[in-house]
């Protein structure tokens, strides 16, 4: 089960680097961006199974990016990362169609498990889409 592709979007470069390394050790394909517009550009070029977005980023924030990804790439599942737990952003994120939330500092195994489940969901969606014509 290592043919999962992830897009990691966070302006905290240290975090992105460590996570990228750890995902790659598990043979998971990771691309990264440090802001919303770059992430959208990457998504134009290829498909990702799962996008992991930090809620707080300068410029386009994580929720806005989530909104655009759900609109333009509805099959890509999104996991939100948040440094400070907030009910308001939590509610917004879930109702915008996020798959799940992960609190920072993220426990890697927890994140990995959620990524797998999100990818499974995407696979199910792709399948029903094909079955439905």
């Amino acid at each position, binding site marked *: 089960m290592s043919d999962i592709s992830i897009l990691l979007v966070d302006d905290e470069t240290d975090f992105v680097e460590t996570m990228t390394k750890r995902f790659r050790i598990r043979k998971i394909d990771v691309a990264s961006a440090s802001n919303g517009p770059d992430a959208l550009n990457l998504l134009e070029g290829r498909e990702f199974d799962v996008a992991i977005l930090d809620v707080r980023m300068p410029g386009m924030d994580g929720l806005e990016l989530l909104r655009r990804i759900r609109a333009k790439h509805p099959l890509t599942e999104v996991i939100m990362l948040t440094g400070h737990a907030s*009910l308001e952003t939590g509610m917004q994120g879930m109702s915008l*169609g996020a798959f799940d939330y992960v609190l920072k500092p993220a426990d890697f195994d927890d994140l990995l498990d959620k990524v797998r*489940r999100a990818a*499974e969901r995407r696979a199910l969606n792709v399948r*029903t889409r094909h079955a439905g014509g």
Partner: protein
Amino acid sequence: MSARVTPAADPGRAARELFSRATGARVWRENRLALWLHFLAPPTLAALAAAAAFANPPLAALLAVLVLALSAASARWLMTRLSRAEEAKDSLTDQLIQSQKMAAVGELSAGIAHEINNPIAIIAQEAEWAGHLLAKAEKSDTPDFTELRDSLREIRAQVDRCGGITHKLLDFARRREPVLQDVDVTRLIDDMARLVDKEASYKDVALVRDLPQDLPLLRTDAPLLRQVVLNLMTNALHAVDKGGHITVTTKVDDAHMDIRVADDGCGIPEENMAKLFTPFFTTKAPGQGTGLGLALCHNLVLGMGGVILVSSRPGQGSVFTVRLPRVPGTGAVR
């Protein structure tokens, strides 16, 4: 002139239908045999009893008692049948009206939200631009300018609020096909509770998770369930006073899994119970609630084949229970 309320299509037929219902002709048509039996048996026996009275008085008395008992039983049977039919019809009509209402509200809201979204976006952009121009203006520290800036800030805040409402409406009206996965409900609840913890601690509210570690996995739609759980916990948090308690528990039997969110907050007055799940029903101040949270939860849970149960004591607290089937598609939970 009075307006016509009845639909114009074939008024004759509608009238006949109404007439046959009013006179009971339809019931007659559908239960002919049973009704004949009920109408004929007691009088026949009564006639027999009268005849027997001449020949054998004790036998006649016995027959009379039998007739009485039979007529009573028959009348009772008819009454119960009738009232049961009436109740069934009423509840069906209620359900039908309710679901039609929901669908209509959903469609209408989505339409309006869609139309309003663009102007809202333009107002936001213009306000942004005006703010930018103001910042560049000379002598921008006069009282008038300060006032202008405040005014612009307020416009932006209110536009954001409108945006929030249209977004909620669109979300409410969106149709979703649940995607089923094996879900660790304990963990799901704990994850969502963590999002609420901070706000809860501001209010000095204890958000207690009383969750078993060995809960079986549940086949359901995880993100939808997250939304439901988050909404119920948010409502509970709004309902409790400083120092209140919210307890989330789960229970499982062969057929269902229950997720229960209990609080010791303000409770729900009896007269509001029936309106809780109606779109736009809220007791919160304008800007504090749209009244779409529970309506959305209701739709989501229904889509997952479950129900939401509510019990509450005004002044003491409320319990919201989400009951989901353990095997999806085994028929809606009653």
